[in-house]
Every structure is written in structure tokens, then in C-alpha cells.
């Protein structure tokens, strides 16, 4: 980082630690002194690329790579115009295409590719979409909204914690004050000798002190793990009772039909299916039984 320097006067950060480098829209650096000198009249040309520049457009260089400074500048400008949000598009695919298009424009402008056309495109877009641009100016993208929300939550949490600590402190102070006041009152009214009262007070103060100490240590217990399970829930250490069951064993079913004899399976195909109730009954249990037979 020390080897950064002004390309014109060759001063480097190493030799002059207070050197301030500036960038203009073209992305070429100059140190502050050179800017003062070259742009006395408020405008002039870039030393390196001859782009006409204004002095008021010079910015302090934030990044080591001046092209990034330039790109960010351009990007901010482009994003002001191209500010459609994801809900302005019917599908994610189209939104992504749009994003890429924006990226293309920024890329072209930064790398000086086809600048004229790109600018024209931008102007045309601006004209066409004036309403949306205006409308979206105040809106944030959904993700930014989420971020803001998170930040807010974080701040609230911090604030709350700070307040709690403060309140706790106050309460303790008050308790101490009350204790002192009680001593004074007793000294005023009580018949006991002062030494005893003082001793009593000392004991009380010590008690208070330990109490405060304990309170400090006792952090509010929450009763939920983040998994939603109650803390301190009694966990049964007994093994899960294994249900001692005899596995299902298939036995061929014997049905007393008191009717005609049930035809065999292979006969069925030959004879065709009958509307006979006994046959259908026969079929309906051959199906599952073959499965259970495999299992057992």
C-alpha cells in the first residue's frame, strides 16, 4: 500500500504519509496537490487519458485499485436509474436477466466499451420507465428490508440489555441508600447504644452486599433450548421398553364356506372369473397374503 503514488509528481505514500490521492470519473489517480495545480480553472483534461474533467468531480480514492472507485461511482449512478425490484417481474428468471443487463451496462461503462450506445440505451430506458423509477426510489429491496430488520432487532436487544443493567444498578444504589437512612433513623430514635446499632448496620450491609452479589450471578434462566425442548426436563434414563411381540406368522386361511368347492388358482384363468362370491373372496386375500408370507 506504501507503493501507491501520484503518477504525475511521483510522490508515494511512503515518502509522504499524508498524501491524498483523488480519482475522477475516468478512473485515473492524481494527488491532491496536482489536482489543485492542474485544475485551477475548475476544469481540464486528464493527464493520462485526456478526458475532460471537472475539478468538483474529484473524490478521495477509497480503494487501492482506482478502477474499482470508478466502477462503484458508475454503479451507483446506474442503480439509481435501474432500480426495479424483484417483485416488479413476473418470474425470477426475468429478474435475473434484468440484473445481468444492468451488470452489462456497468461493465461497458467502466471498461469504455461502446460507451455511446450504452448511454443511449440508458437514456431510453429512463424515459420509458420514468414512473417505476420514481416509485421505486423510496423502496428497498426485500433483502435490504430484512437486513434493516435484523439490525433493528440487534439494536433493541443491546438497548434492552443496557437498560436492564442500568436498572439493576439503580435498584442496588437505592437499597444501599435506604439502608443508610435506616441507620440514621435508628440512631435518632432507638434507645440502644450506638455501638450496637452500628454493629447491626454492618451486618445488614454485609447481607445486602451478598444478596446483590447473588443476584448478579443468578442470570435469568430461560426454560427453553433453542430446539424447543424444555430445560431441566426430567429425562428418562430407562431404556425404551421393547415390546416383546411374536412376529406375525402367516398361516393359510381356512374358510368354511358351506358352498361349492373353491376352484384352484390356475383353474380360475381357464374357467374365467365367476360372479361367485366365494371366488372373489378367495382372490382378495391371496394378494396381501403373498407379501406377509415373504416377511415372515
Amino acid at each position: 500500500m506504501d507503493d501507491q503514488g501520484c503518477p504525475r509528481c511521483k510522490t508515494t505514500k511512503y515518502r509522504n504519509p499524508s498524501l491524498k490521492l483523488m480519482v475522477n470519473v475516468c478512473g485515473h489517480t492524481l494527488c491532491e496537490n496536482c489536482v489543485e495545480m492542474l485544475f485551477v480553472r475548475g476544469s481540464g483534461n486528464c493527464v493520462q487519458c485526456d478526458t475532460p474533467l471537472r475539478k468538483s468531480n474529484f473524490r478521495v480514492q477509497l480503494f487501492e485499485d482506482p478502477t474499482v472507485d470508478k466502477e462503484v461511482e458508475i454503479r451507483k449512478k446506474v442503480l439509481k436509474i435501474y432500480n426495479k425490484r424483484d417483485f416488479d417481474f413476473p418470474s425470477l428468471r426475468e429478474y435475473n436477466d434484468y440484473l445481468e443487463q444492468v451488470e452489462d451496462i456497468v461493465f461497458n461503462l467502466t471498461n469504455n466499451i461502446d460507451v455511446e450506445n450504452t448511454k443511449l440505451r440508458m437514456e431510453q430506458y429512463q424515459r420509458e420507465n420514468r414512473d417505476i423509477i420514481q416509485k421505486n426510489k423510496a423502496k428497498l429491496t426485500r433483502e435490504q428490508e430484512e437486513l434493516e430488520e435484523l439490525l433493528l432487532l440487534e439494536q433493541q436487544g443491546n438497548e434492552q440489555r443496557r437498560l436492564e443493567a442500568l436498572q439493576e444498578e439503580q435498584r442496588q444504589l437505592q437499597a444501599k441508600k435506604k439502608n443508610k437512612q435506616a441507620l440514621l433513623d435508628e440512631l435518632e430514635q432507638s434507645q440502644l447504644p450506638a455501638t450496637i446499632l452500628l454493629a447491626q448496620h454492618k451486618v445488614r450491609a454485609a447481607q445486602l452486599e451478598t444478596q446483590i452479589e447473588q443476584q448478579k450471578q443468578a442470570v435469568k434462566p430461560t426454560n427453553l433450548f433453542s430446539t424447543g425442548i424444555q430445560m431441566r426436563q426430567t429425562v428418562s434414563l430407562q431404556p425404551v421398553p421393547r415390546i416383546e411381540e411374536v412376529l406375525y406368522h402367516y398361516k393359510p386361511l381356512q374358510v368354511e364356506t358351506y358352498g361349492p368347492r373353491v376352484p384352484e388358482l390356475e383353474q380360475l384363468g381357464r374357467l374365467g372369473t365367476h360372479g361367485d362370491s366365494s371366488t372373489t373372496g378367495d382372490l382378495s386375500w391371496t394378494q396381501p397374503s403373498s407379501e406377509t408370507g415373504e416377511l415372515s
Partner: protein
Amino acid sequence: MKLNIEGLLVYFPYDYIYPEQYSYMLELKRTLDAKGHGVLEMPSGTGKTISLLSLIVAYQRVSSAFPLDVTKLIYCSRTVPEIEKVVEELRKLMEFYAKETGERNNFLALALSSRKNLCIHPEVSSLRFGKEVDGKCHSLTASYIRAQRHVNPNQPVCRFYEEFDAVGRQVPLPAGIYNLDDLKDFGRRKGWCPYYLARYAILHANIVVYSYHYLLDPKIADLVSKELAKKSVVVFDEAHNIDNVCIDSMSVNITRRTLDRCQNNVDTLQNTIQKIKETDAAKLREEYRRLVEGLKEANVARETDIYLSNPVLPDEILKEAVPGTIRTAEHFVGFLRRFLEYLKSRLRVHHVVQESAPQFLKDIFDKVCIDRKPLRFCAERLQSLLRTLEIADIADFSAVTLISNFATLVSTYSQGFTIIIEPFEDRTPTIANPVLHFSCMDPSIAIKPVFQRFQSVIITSGTLSPLDIYPRILDFRPVTMASFTMTLNTFNVCLCLVALSSKFETREDFAVIRNYGNLLLEMSAVVPDGIVAFFTSYVYMENIVASWYEQGILENIQRNKLIFIETQDAAETSMALEKYQEACENGRGAILLSVARGKVSEGIDFVHHFGRAVIMFGVPYVYTQSRILKARLEYLRDQFQIRENDFLTFDAMRHAAQCVGRAIRGKTDYGLMIFADKRYARADKRGKLPRWIQEHINDGSLNLTVDETVQLSKHFLRQMAQPFRQEDQLGLSLLTLEQLESEEMLQKITQIAHQT
């Protein structure tokens, strides 16, 4: 021996069993029966691994009778030696099965490790670093490289992978137990790539042994463990550090150097895109078409295309199309460039910044107009681009991958993460070394998929106390939580709490340092063989050793024993360790000075004479000023109602227990444990030590002086030095089957498990 554990027939490959092992298996079985998760603590050296394995294998064997039970065991350990140890135990168990039942069972068990440990390609395997091996392997096996070979036969490919791809998938790996070497041998014999073979085989193996990262690191887990069966039991062994593993796997640190390398990556990308556009524009158009259709299709990658890193993405993102802003390659590179420049500008801070993910997102939109949605797709988009550009060596692109992962994570999670930018390290405030820590504070994010997916998850270690904190920080509901103690016939642990102090304010005190020195000096005269001393940090150790040197204490110690010191350099440390062991083997022994949380405290065992005494100087708190830790503590307090102090003490105690536990690695082992800090005597600290250590703390061993400690240890060591026979142990801490089945013993065993 054959055991009957609540109606389950368990083959146990040894003739004797410890009562606590029986009790452990009992609890484990109940957990599996309930199909729930469990937290089990049992001291090291009591045969945790074999108890686990024999019970779960027995369970798997009967599961053919109960069709909905366990089909697979996933055993996660930390290091390669530990993985190998597990496989060896398993082999023993299987041999026992074969002997007892007389039939070869069709169990398939295998270990899986990185390519570096499994590669048999002559060139690739000779590389030194894991990353290089991965990169080189990828450049030989990626699908497009292999596709190019059809056109250009000179394109080098890995013949082992080709062979495996051609035939390896049809033939399942024959049943048996495979450790890493077995896999390599098998691979060599068949000419198949062992790594891909193992990765393929874990899908139908009965037992898989691998490292934590294969399950917990979302990038690796997505590749390796995605398809493992739901009806698996997952065991995390040595899991006392599991929360840190989870957190590390989700955190990202970005330094200036990362960004510079990333810049180079982006430049290379742009150049490659330019080149491809001139030569083969159709390829880019094809990618573009796919991206328009949606990522789901683009995501169908071949298994070798590991452009790594898929941080837990919600599924709905994968189904949606890539946003238009980063659809074409140039736009995406421009996007990366902007993101990079933004990060660079953020790193140029002069004071510490801490912010939440939403704040970061808002800022990035304001500064460089990057929306949240394209950020969320960044990792996927980069993978797709790298694949399209057919870049062979992905190792070079680790920087840009890291950045894109960061982008995805920061935009996906609005809670549980924090961003801290530090302009310099705390210890060197004059040297600018800006770092952006994107640190995960909620270990449950990384481990949640594991708990959700698998039927039973067992977390076990020698030091898990207090047990109830793990379910809270990992956010799950265990059905069993139990802590077991070591049953011993004699007291072979002597615990001393020495009343010295190393509170932060007093630890630089001259007197404190001298007292510590005296303690070590006296102990070095009394204790035979090895002594291991742990300090709280490297800096503190250096200070103390320097002033011991000035005070002449070191010289005095060296009259008794040699001194070795652990350093931050791994090679140096392993050298010191080797020499330390050599010194313990012959001569008067040695002293190893090391650091809690260091390499020695975590992975090295000091069996028998290698560690007769462990001295813990001070309480090993973490460096509490670190901002990452502070943020995490705050998060724990707000989300889980765990107080800062509780967590810090818990963390310190688990490390202290881990250090001290290094010395006792079995029942015949004995050793002194000395906690040299009076803060250990306080109830809040003592209560957080594991139960097997707590049991040895009695009033007589609290708050001792150095002299008293010496007296106590002399007495203890003389007692322990008497010959020790197995018969003494039998019936008390070692049981035969008959003894185990006696009514009285079963009664006793039920008391071992300490439910919480």
C-alpha cells in the same frame, strides 16, 4: 469372555474386565436402545475404546434381528496414531469373534485419512505437505483432465485412479479390518487408488474410523460423509475439545497476505477467462447456460472435482438460480474484485472494529453496492468457474476460495458469528498486521447436522466434567450423561494441592517464582524417573525459566535430573520429547517443562516411568483479553445462559485435567499429581474437575506447603514401589466372568456410573 449386558450377548476379547467397563457398556447400551445421544466420561487408561467397540459390534450383529437398529459405526478420533490404535483394538475383537463363533464374519471396518497418508502414486506420495498432495492428486484425477486424455494420450493421469475407476467400483472391498497400511497394501496389489477406494468403501462398511474433520468440517463432510446411513452410531472419542473443533471449522481469518494472494488469484482468473474467450468461447457459454438453469444442475460434479468448501448451504439456495449479477464470468470476476477491494479497505483500520454480520452486509452495500444474495452464491459460483476454466492446481486458489467461503458464510448466518478487525496483534502493538477474524461463536452450528442426521451420537473422553455444559454449548439433548470412576485396589494417584499462587497480579513476583522453583527442585530429588511440569503459557514459562536460571535453581535441579523444554516449534518439541524418553529409560530421569494447551498436553501419553509426577503450575486460563473470546463469552451468556466465569473455569479445568491425566494411563500405572496453585482448592474450581480426580482430593492433601508435599510424596512413592501383582487386583478392580456375575458385584457396579 462373553458378557450378558441386559440381554445382549457381548464378546469381550479379554479374560478380565474392569467393573467400570461393564458399567460403561451398560450405559452405552441404554443410549443405543433409546436411539438418543449420550455424554460419557471415563478416565483414560480404563479401556474405553474396547468397551465401546465390543458393545457396538455386538449391537450391530443382533441388528439383523431388529431391522431398525444400528447398521454402521462411525468412530471419530483426533490423530492418525489414535485412529491406528482403534483399528488394532478392533482387529483383536474380530479375531476373538472368529475364534469363539468359529465362523468368519463379514464385517468390513476401515480407517480413512487424508490423501497424504493413503497415496501410493510414486510421485505424488513423495510430496511433503498435505496440500501439495491434494493439489497434485487433483491435477491427475480431475474429470476434465481425464477427458482430455481421450484427445491427447500424453496427458498424465494417475494409473491407480484409472484402474479403480474402471473396475474398483463393481467389486466391493472384501470383508476384514483395514488400517491405513492394509489399505495401501491392498491398493498396491490390485493397482487401485487406496484413497478413493476407502472413500467409496465407507458407504457400505460396517465400521469407519476417521478424524473429526470428516464429519464436522462442512467443506470436507459434504464430500465424504454426505451419504452415510442415518442408522449409524457416531462416536466422538477424546471429545473434550469438540466445541473448539466445531468453532474452528466455521471460522475464517483473513490477513493482508491472504488478500494479496487473492488478488493474484483474481488476476489469473481474469487472464484465463480472456484466453478461453479467444480460444474456446463455447465453454463459457455452456457454463452460462447451466447457471441460468440453476445451481442444482451445475452442482452435479464428479467426485474428483473437489473445489472444496461448501459451507453449510441451505438447500433452497441450491435449487434457486444464480442471481444475474454474477452470472457471466467477467461480471463475477468484477464482483470478486470489488469485494476484495472492499475487504482491503476494511483492513486499513487503525483501531479495533467489532460488528455483526448484518452490519457488515449493510456497510458493504453502501460502499461497493454488493447485495446479500450474490454474496451468498459466491462460493458456489467460484467452484463452477474454476471447474469451467479447468484449472488443474487448485492449491493455488486457496486464498480466493477462502474469501468466497467467507462471503457465503457472512451472508447466510445473521447470528452466531461476529466480525472483528484488529489492526495489530495485542502483543506487538507497534507492528501493523491487520487481521479480519470472522469467528463463529456457536459450536452448535457446525455439529447440528450430525446430531440431526444420525441416530445416536456418543461424546466420550477422559475429561468431560462438568457434563452438563456440553449439551448446553452444543445444543442437543442427551438421553444419558454419566461419569465413571476408576476402581482401584490401592490408591495409585496421590493428589496434592500446594498453596502457592500464580494469580495474574502476583505471578511475576520474585517470591512466587522462587517457591515454584523450590517445589520443582524438591520434587526432582524425591521422584524417580520422569517429571512433567505444565505452565500456563509459553511466555510465562520462558519468564520463569529465565529467572530460575538467574537464581541458580536450574543448576540445582540439573544435579538431580536433566531438563527438557517444549517450544512452539513442532520439530524441536518432538526432538525434546524423544530425548526426554531416552533420559527416562536410563539414568536418573528427566524433567519436561511444557505448556498446557500445547502439543504435549493434548496428545502425548506418559506411561509408567515416563511420568511419575505431573506438576501443574497455575491455572491454565485462556488469554482472556482476546476479543474473540470476549465475544464468544458474551454470546454464551446471552444465548445459553452460561456465565463468563463458569465457562472460563470450565475451560481451564478441562485443560488442567487433561494435562494431569497424561501420567495415569492404566491401572498398573501410578503417579503424583500436583496442582501448584491455591485457587484449585476453591469449591468452584474443584467441582469442575472430573470425578475420578475429585475422589482423590481429601482434606489431608489440600493447601499443603512445599515441605508437606515432599513428605507426602515420599511416603506415597515408597508405598507404590512395592511389587504389584495381578492377584491383588482381581475381584476388586479386575473381574473374571464369575466374579462379574456375582450379585454383590453387580450391585457395586451400578454405583459406579454417576448420573448427572
